[in-house]
């Protein structure tokens, strides 16, 4: 299909003029937020002592007092359900993105380094999958696998893989044209060794940025699926299914749907901020944290500019700016 210059969609913010204090505040806020989400994912019991599935006789009480987010039809505490409902959503979206990253990097490297015919076949298959919307791919897979968090992780992983593979393949092709890659090949470095020693370290920054930018989308897709009843089954708490359940009594008990909905919104917001933050961190032009990402340093620095394109490479690649292209939802 069309190769979109999707890089424009998610642009690194320009916080560079904010100075040292601004950066420090930004970093602390991000670290605190990420810690908060880590607690939600790993140890939700730390934030509330109430059991999310324990019913009581306090049916449908409005938010306030002992129940800051109110209670539902069965007298269950909505706050506790929102706290515990984070786990399946975060697990599904993070797991899905992780799976897609691993698969996408592997396929992208194969597509970019394998013999021409094999790479061609692999990338054509990727193109076909790219033509299908993410949600449709996920729906198809869940139709075959059955509902559940595991299915959502797998479905998201498969659905996001083609987009990741395309991005990785494009950078691998660019990287291969650089002198030290050609030197490695001349010195007899095997394909696998070249991939691990030379390609992966240089891809790391880009892959990190790509994955962190995809998390927001993954949260949206994961909650959409559980909203449709294809994720965690009731009575277990989950933002998507709780939102769907609360939707029916929207006019009488607004808090049932509103709090899970707000939780999803805040999560996507934070995920997008975090994605922008990671992108700004790894932006060599920003020079914000020269040493912070040392293991990944050199990644975007060494991504070749337009000059280093192999002869015979499509003109479109040659004229493309050396910015990252982040897959959109469909990718």
């Amino acid at each position, binding site marked *: 299909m069309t190769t979109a210059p999707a890089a424009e969609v998610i*642009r690194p913010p320009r916080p560079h003029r904010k100075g040292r204090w601004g950066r420090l505040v930004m970093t602390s806020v991000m670290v605190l937020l990420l810690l908060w989400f880590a607690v939600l994912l790993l140890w939700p019991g730390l934030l509330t002592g109430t059991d999310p599935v324990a019913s009581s006789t306090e049916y449908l009480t409005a938010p306030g007092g002992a129940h800051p987010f109110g209670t539902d039809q069965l007298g269950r505490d909505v706050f506790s359900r929102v706290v515990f409902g984070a786990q399946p959503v975060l697990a599904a979206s993070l797991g899905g993105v992780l799976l897609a990253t691993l698969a996408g990097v592997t396929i992208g490297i194969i597509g970019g380094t394998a013999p021409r015919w094999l790479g061609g076949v692999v990338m*054509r298959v990727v193109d076909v999958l790219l033509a299908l919307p993410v949600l449709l791919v996920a729906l198809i897979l869940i139709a075959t696998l059955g509902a559940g968090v595991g299915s959502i992780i797998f479905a998201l992983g498969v659905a996001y893989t083609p987009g990741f593979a395309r991005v990785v393949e494009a950078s691998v092709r660019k990287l291969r044209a650089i002198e030290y890659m050609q030197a490695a090949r001349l010195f007899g470095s095997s394909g696998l060794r070249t991939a691990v020693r030379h390609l992966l370290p240089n891809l790391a920054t880009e892959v990190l940025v790509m994955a962190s930018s995809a998390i927001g989308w993954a949260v949206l897709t994961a909650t959409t699926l559980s909203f449709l009843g294809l994720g965690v089954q009731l009575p277990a708490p989950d933002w998507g299914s709780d*939102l769907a359940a609360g*939707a029916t009594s929207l006019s009488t008990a607004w808090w049932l749907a509103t709090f899970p*909905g707000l939780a999803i919104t805040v999560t996507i917001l934070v995920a997008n901020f975090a994605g922008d933050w990671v992108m700004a961190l790894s932006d060599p032009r920003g020079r914000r944290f020269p040493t912070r990402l040392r293991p990944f340093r050199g990644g975007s620095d060494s991504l070749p500019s337009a000059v280093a394109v192999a002869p015979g490479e499509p003109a479109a690649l040659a004229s493309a700016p050396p910015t990252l292209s982040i897959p959109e939802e*469909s990718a």
Partner: protein
Amino acid sequence: MAIAFVFRRLVASVPVMIGITAIAFVLIHLVPGDPARAMLFGSNASPEQVQALREHLGLTKPLWQQYVTFIGQLLHGDLGTSYVTSSPVAQELLSRTPSTLQLTGGAMLVAIITGVPLGLVAGIRPGSVLDHLSRAVSFIGVAVPYFFLALLLVLVFGIQLGWVPAIDDGSLLALIVPAISLGWGYAAILTRLIRGRVIEEYRSEYVKSARARGCSESRILLRHVFRNSSIPAVTMIGLQFGNILTGAAVTEVIFGRAGLGSFLATSITTKNIPVVQGAIVLIGLSYVVINLVVDLAVSAIDPRARVATASD
């Protein structure tokens, strides 16, 4: 030139279509359970009857033969019969298509009429109040899930104020809230995209030269900057079409609209595989067609695109 370009793009979409039909075809064999049994579910059929139906459906033939039959039927517009209603799937899908297309089109319209002006205004004066406003709008637009936004809008405008029907009644009025909730997120993406492009285009040499030639600012904006900024926007709309279409599926479920999406969703839960297959083919096909149209549109706006694809 133009015809060669159209032809090349058509040829390029053939493998994609084959792939999509292959995925749709394989699905029936991936889903656990026997389709013949699924069709006869609840009718107390004997094992012989199930076997007879299996043979009738061609499920006993080798896989490749089944695929060839599947493609042959597809080319005749035959998508099989629904397990639930036993009526042709093609007919059932087509009767629900207009509703979905209305919603998809409405959402795209919302995205374009809010995203394009907002992006332009923000891009012309970066750092202005309007720019900050557009940034806030787009950030929230991307973050609020459309199904949550749909519920909030229904609560306020459907239930509290009673301006629009909360549940679909087939009127155009009932389309407004679903279209806004679905289109909002794409408006946000479009705003950021266009803003970035406009800022970039204003820095370019040709704008300087146009100014030097005494071109008016409005002419520079409309004839040069806007035209160049609209190219990635058109591409983005094509790429997002599939997502809007599937997003329409979820929105339809919320508003009780009898469209393609809600039909697909129920068919997945009831394992009505022919319908799921048909929907995949239909959505995949429309995605390919839309992207073809988008590519042609882009090449009409931007002659450079033709050259770029030619060397691809």
